[in-house]
């Protein structure tokens, strides 16, 4: 074998490879003059990444997937930016005793394939979602309904395929009977999980998850995995949130920085969250396009009440620690103004939020020290805060610890878990050594969502294992109420009692710091911090 010859061959192969890949090199120059480059005219684009799961309403609870689900499906009702109910597919949702609810649907609604949306579309879908055999992530959302245990038993196969609580009265009316009173049940119905399904779904749920057919403002167009999901405005949509644009492109970005640079250069219309690198300058870059708005979510420090440090701790100590945190300074400096200091256990956007006027949420080193001493101090005078290192929490956890140490002399260190799965596992298995960082975004805009789901002794998301009889009883009172107002008021009492028990230390409420480019207008934020896409217009 002659060397020179084969070296030539190798060089030749490289040239061929280059030429072959260069074939796609001609730039398509059909960019409209005004529209954002690379998308059909009238469409708007947003940096929503690949959904975690196939597109099924009851199997999606993360933000990427739910953006797409909400564009394709419309459930009975929705909320405006103030958290008030807006009826969408439902004509009315009413109950006299908060146990049996009657739903009347608006007539004439259709799925994208022309099938009518009937009471049965809802009942069948809910029964399917709740069935344990279908392994839907959000199945527990249906657990209020009578007969849930039959379709979703704790062990073994389901006894029935239908929940006894769901009954169709006629084509557009059905009743929901709950196992127990839930005065705020109609608010839960606003969660995207309660969307109806067309009949074709049951033929092949798997295929449906890749190419869903809904009843929402947009119809499904295409899904290029890990890159793009495209939906088109649906002319026949009759809801109040009819699309003002021609369609949406959900584009996947590997980093927020990459998405941001595309907004600046006009390749992307909207960004949901500006990354830390660009936060200091995004308002000058985007001008009117910069979005800064609070939404219904809270960050807390949750003591794990089973560990050596916080077992049988005097609430006074926790109140003292809370007073040792300089929320104002930390939100302004470390968090770049992306949070608002908390003044209660619930964010202002939810029904029943109240100003607690409690000193325990204000920074006061002198009182903090005194309270901790009064309560007997923290065992060994130190504790840890567990967080996941992949979520950008390190900076503020360090700052909070610093603040507590300076103010009270109690030593505090971060306990980093490499990523979210590891962090969750430690919480689930009661392995948190001190406190952990808690976060909660509203599922529905009522204070109950932030109190019962986190601090009831039997609540599934109560990972600190806080248990208090008095609180449970107060909550039971709120659940037995006949009207929403009574229930919300009862839960306000719960919140007041919680300050004395300190099941968690509220830190701050979230703010969305996003933005949009020059080609779009009317970008608004809903109560749980999502950009409202139907109202966005192109210029």
């Amino acid at each position, binding site marked *: *074998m002659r*060397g*020179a010859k*084969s*070296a030539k061959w190798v060089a030749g192969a*490289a040239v061929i*490879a*280059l030429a072959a*890949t*260069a074939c*796609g*090199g*001609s*730039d398509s120059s059909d960019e409209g003059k005004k529209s954002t480059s*690379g998308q059909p005219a009238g469409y708007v684009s947003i940096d929503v990444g*690949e959904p*975690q*799961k*196939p597109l099924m309403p009851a199997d999606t*609870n993360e933000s990427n997937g739910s953006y797409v689900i909400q564009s394709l499906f419309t459930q009975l009702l929705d909320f405006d930016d103030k958290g008030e109910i807006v009826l969408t597919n439902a004509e009315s949702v009413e109950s006299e005793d908060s146990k049996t609810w009657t739903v009347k649907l608006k007539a004439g609604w259709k799925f994208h394939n022309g099938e009518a949306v009937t009471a049965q579309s809802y009942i069948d879908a809910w029964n399917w979602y709740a069935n*344990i*055999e279908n*392994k839907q*992530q959000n*199945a*527990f959302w249906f657990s209020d309904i009578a007969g849930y245990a039959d379709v*979703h*038993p*704790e*062990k073994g196969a389901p006894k029935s395929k239908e929940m006894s609580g769901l009954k169709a009265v006629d084509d557009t009316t059905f009743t929901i009977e709950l196992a127990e009173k839930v005065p705020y049940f109609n608010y839960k119905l606003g969660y995207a999980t309660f969307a109806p399904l067309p009949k074709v779904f049951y033929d092949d749920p798997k295929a449906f998850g890749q190419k869903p057919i809904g009843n929402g403002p947009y119809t499904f167009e295409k899904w290029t*995995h*890990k*890159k*793009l999901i495209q939906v088109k405005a649906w002319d026949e949509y009759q809801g109040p949130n009819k699309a003002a644009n021609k369609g949406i492109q959900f584009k*996947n*970005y*590997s*980093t927020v*920085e*990459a*998405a941001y*640079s*595309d907004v*600046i*250069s006009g*390749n992307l219309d909207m960004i949901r969250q500006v990354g830390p690198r660009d936060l200091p300058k995004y308002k000058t870059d985007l001008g009117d396009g910069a979005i800064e708005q609070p939404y219904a979510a809270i960050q807390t420090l949750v003591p794990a009440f089973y560990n050596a440090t916080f077992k049988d701790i005097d609430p006074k100590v926790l109140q003292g620690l809370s007073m040792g945190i300089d929320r104002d300074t930390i939100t302004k400096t470390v968090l770049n103004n992306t949070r608002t200091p908390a003044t209660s256990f619930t964010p202002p956007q939810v029904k029943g939020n109240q100003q607690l006027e409690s000193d325990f949420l204000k920074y006061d080193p002198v009182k903090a020290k005194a309270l901790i001493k009064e309560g007997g101090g923290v065992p060994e005078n130190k504790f840890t805060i567990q967080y996941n290192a*992949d979520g950008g929490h390190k900076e503020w956890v360090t700052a909070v610890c610093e603040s507590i140490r300076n103010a009270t002399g109690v030593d505090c260190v971060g306990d980093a878990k490499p*990523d*979210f*799965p*590891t*962090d*969750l*596992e*430690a919480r*689930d298995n009661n392995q948190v050594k001190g406190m952990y960082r*808690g*976060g909660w975004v509203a599922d529905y805009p009522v204070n109950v969502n932030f109190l019962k789901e986190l601090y009831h002794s039997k609540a*599934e*998301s109560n990972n600190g294992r806080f248990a208090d009889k008095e609180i449970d009883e107060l909550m039971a009172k709120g659940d037995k109420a006949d009207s929403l107002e009574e229930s919300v008021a009862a839960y306000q009492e719960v919140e007041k009692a919680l300050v004395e028990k300190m099941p968690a230390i509220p830190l701050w409420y979230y703010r969305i710091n996003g933005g949009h480019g020059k080609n779009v207008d009317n970008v608004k934020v809903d109560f749980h911090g999502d950009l409202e896409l139907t109202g966005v217009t192109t210029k």
Partner: protein
Amino acid sequence: MGRYVARRLLQMIPVFLGSTLLVFLMMYALPGDPVRALAGEQHVDASQIAALKAQYGLDQPIWQQYLNYLGNLFQGDLGVQIGTQRPVAEVISDAYPITVRLAIFAFVFTVVAGISLGIVAGLKAESLRDRGLLGLTLVLISMPSFVLGFLVQYLFAFQLGIAKPNVSLEPTSTELIMPAIVLASLSLAYVARLTRTSVAENMRADYMRTAVAKGLPRRRVIGVHLMRNSLIPVVTFLGTDIGALMGGAIVTEGIFNIKGVGSLVFEALGKREGATVVGVVTLLVVVYLICSLLVDLLYAVLDPRIRYA
């Protein structure tokens, strides 16, 4: 030669098995349950987690899982992602083409620019242009790729406006040039330095003097006599570099928003998608193995004294 290749190919099998087993065990040793992690801070009931685990065979002992994986692998089945429920083979084949293109671009750039710079400097060692090159490569070696990436992006996309900051959905070749250069810059610097040293050394070799004394044209002296001997260490480096280019582009891919293998593995690791990680790593192992075989074969081409029987 044929026997040598066959033997090398056979040796790949234990390496392949060993490396998949290792990655498999590592994934298993990581804390964090992929099924539970799907739900985030929300709650999922235990019965449902158990059902999902059974569906994906995650409730079986690790050795059983590994055997199942191997069994499926030999039938061409790489498994299914837990979250997206898509076949891993499909996920990988979505991500691979762009990474291969990027790697080829970067590789060609490394070879062409690196070797020519090295020769230019090495022919006149200790001269001003040699010093200049050493300085330049020092800068490239010491600069982290994310700094260089953002710098290039800022300069060409935002200041000069001659390029887009990110590659588009179906990237054209021109769009890939910028990320490829960033990706290649580090190995480019190494290649240039290796070539330079090796050329500078060989310039003083006896056979060079002989070749010049024979009155051979300068092109032939440098192109054949000098290059063949100087390229051996460079080729070794380039061989392993291909593997690195294929797998290690996470930072560059992130900056220019390229949906390649780097980001795929990174994401899959965070979500504990064992099947995806093992699948990609297995492929990378194969790439490494083939590259090192090619390097060994190229030695024989470059230095005829090396013969494989």
